[in-house]
């Protein structure tokens, strides 16, 4: 009798906990929350935005020049925010410097601090500084008060803007961008490796994971910069450079095809191989992950924007229609990439490593790892970008006349 009551009570608890089938008892609560979804999404935007910028700098794609500086500032804004979701997630954030001081050599995660610092300081900040040095020097001469001192500080004492000096800046900047491309791949490929190297989890464990992460990062970064450029230009009441947007959309389309092909390769491989985990994962994709994976990620976030972009590539459409299609495709691509991160991080924790059951992710609203914090962290880079654009206007024609009135 007691046992029967126990099982009845146990069943009720299980239903309340959102568990179906059997989970190992320690698996019921998810360890990694929406904040860990945000982390690869944000670093992906950084890597993608930087790679878009490098197209102009290294590969001389002149058409996308209007977005070059904006892409760099976007990358910096998101990179500044990237560690915050990780810090908020840690049980003991005060101990996180230990990753710098005593990194564990066999841990992929231990490299985070170094990869992050390298990318932030040696690549992004350095490249932005080199590119803006002339402007900073001019601004330090034309502004007044506190702002003047800030710009003076930002020159780092290097106020020589002779043609020879600027030529050196240009050369060094080119080298930094060249180093920056593999660094951007490293930054986001390493995030993919964090997941792909976990052999205990068949949803994650795949050598394709870092490659898929890199290409999806490029999709989100390129789409993100395209949307930001169009929105900012609209806000500035300036005409959108359609040649620039056309070029960005073309690159977005090509990269998206590679990204989608890789994801499909991974999927086909899993389905064809059908190892011991397949039945469990297949069930999950058709039930708990059906909406986020099939509907949002694949249909809405990948196939639809790909169709829209392919139409713009093969059919001659009026400028206004193309712009609308780019905006729609860009927004959907962002939703699709976010859904991809969600499905990797959250989806990978919804099934039991026993392959016998499933749990449910309940996102809280106002907790440290809740949806409000996640929403705040998603918006925060845009505020930082706004401040950066004010400080370092990316539009040469404007800041030459009116140095601090960026937009």
């Amino acid at each position, binding site marked *: 009798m007691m046992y029967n009551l126990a099982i009845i009570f146990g069943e009720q608890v299980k239903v309340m906990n959102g568990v179906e089938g059997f989970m190992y008892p*320690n698996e019921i609560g998810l360890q990694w929350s929406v904040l860990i979804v945000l982390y690869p999404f944000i670093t992906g935007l950084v890597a993608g935005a930087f790679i878009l910028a490098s197209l102009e700098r290294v590969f001389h794609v002149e058409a996308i020049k209007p977005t070059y500086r904006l892409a760099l500032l976007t990358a910096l804004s998101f990179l500044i925010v990237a560690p915050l979701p990780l810090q908020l997630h840690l049980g003991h954030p005060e101990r996180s410097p230990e*990753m710098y001081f005593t990194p564990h050599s066999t841990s992929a995660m231990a490299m985070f601090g170094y990869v992050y610092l390298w990318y932030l300081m040696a690549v992004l900040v350095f490249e932005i500084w080199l590119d803006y040095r002339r402007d900073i020097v001019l601004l330090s001469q034309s502004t007044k008060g506190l702002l003047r001192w800030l710009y003076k500080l930002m020159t780092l004492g290097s106020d020589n803007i002779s043609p020879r000096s600027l030529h050196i800046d240009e050369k060094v900047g080119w080298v930094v961008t060249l180093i920056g491309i593999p660094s951007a791949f490293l930054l986001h490929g390493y995030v993919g490796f*964090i997941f792909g190297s976990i052999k205990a989890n068949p949803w994650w464990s795949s050598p394709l994971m870092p490659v898929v992460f890199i290409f999806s990062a490029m999709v989100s970064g390129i789409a993100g910069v395209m949307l930001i450029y169009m929105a900012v230009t609209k806000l500035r009441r300036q005409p959108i450079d359609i040649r620039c947007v056309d070029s960005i959309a073309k690159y977005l389309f090509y990269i998206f095809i590679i990204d989608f092909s890789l994801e499909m390769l991974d999927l086909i491989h899993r389905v064809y191989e059908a190892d011991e985990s397949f039945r469990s994962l297949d069930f999950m994709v058709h039930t708990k992950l059906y909406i986020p994976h099939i509907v949002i990620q694949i249909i809405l976030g990948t196939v639809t924007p790909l169709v829209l972009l392919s139409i713009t590539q093969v059919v001659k459409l009026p400028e206004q229609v193309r712009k609308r299609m780019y905006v729609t495709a860009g927004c959907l691509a962002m939703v699709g990439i976010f859904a991809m991160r969600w499905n990797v991080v959250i989806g990978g924790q919804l099934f039991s490593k026993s392959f016998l059951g499933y749990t449910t992710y309940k996102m809280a609203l106002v907790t440290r790892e809740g949806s409000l914090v996640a929403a705040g962290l998603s918006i925060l880079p845009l505020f930082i970008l706004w401040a950066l654009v004010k400080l370092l206007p990316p539009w040469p024609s404007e800041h030459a006349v009116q140095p601090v009135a960026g937009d």
Partner: protein
Amino acid sequence: MNLSRRHFLVLMPAAAIAWKSVLAGTPEQASNYKISEHWWGMLIDIPKCIGCGNCVRACQAENDVPDGYFRTWVERYHVEDENMTNPQVISPDGGKEGFPIATEDAGKYFFVPKMCNHCSDSPCTQVCPVGATFVTPDGVVLVDPKYCLGCAYCVQACPYGCRYIHPDKKVADKCSLCYHRITKGLTTACCENCPTGARQLVDLKNPKDPIHEFLKTHSVQVLKPQMATGAKAYYNGLDGSVR
């Protein structure tokens, strides 16, 4: 009591050593424990397990395990003849209070105690970003709670679901193989409280340990051997349906 200067000089170092010992608290291991002479593991004899939950209760009492989390737990498998790859498994509250009466006659029922496998090539140790989790020279996987960041990467990396983030301490927690006991010559709390001897602490470096004879004469397996983690929880009579 008259204390000469000579006696005082002799007693001072002894008193200093004694005071240092008092300040250090209880030593973690017995003075005669030689860490290099042991290589610990666990033998779990499935046919002997009756699913009483004594081991789970003993572990929780010994190690102050928080409610709803488990350093060890017991699963009951129900495997039907025609559906061997899809067993029905339950572990209500980790099997702490035992199990409900089986309702179906078809197929077989058996209990499987689970715990950290103290892997020699442990994935959890590999992924820890600061080395807060480590394998001791005597083969026990431990967590340093004063060093752990609470990132939960080790929890993700464990194929057996043996780790959790302690809800109060906010650090990774798991079976320590009662390290505070075994280094004093005692056995683990779960082994000591198992009424049937289904769990036995084994020392693979001790030539006199009965495990050597047992391994020679029984068909013994580890969980998820394809994971190649060097698991040291050896299961006798492990059914192929167990995950």
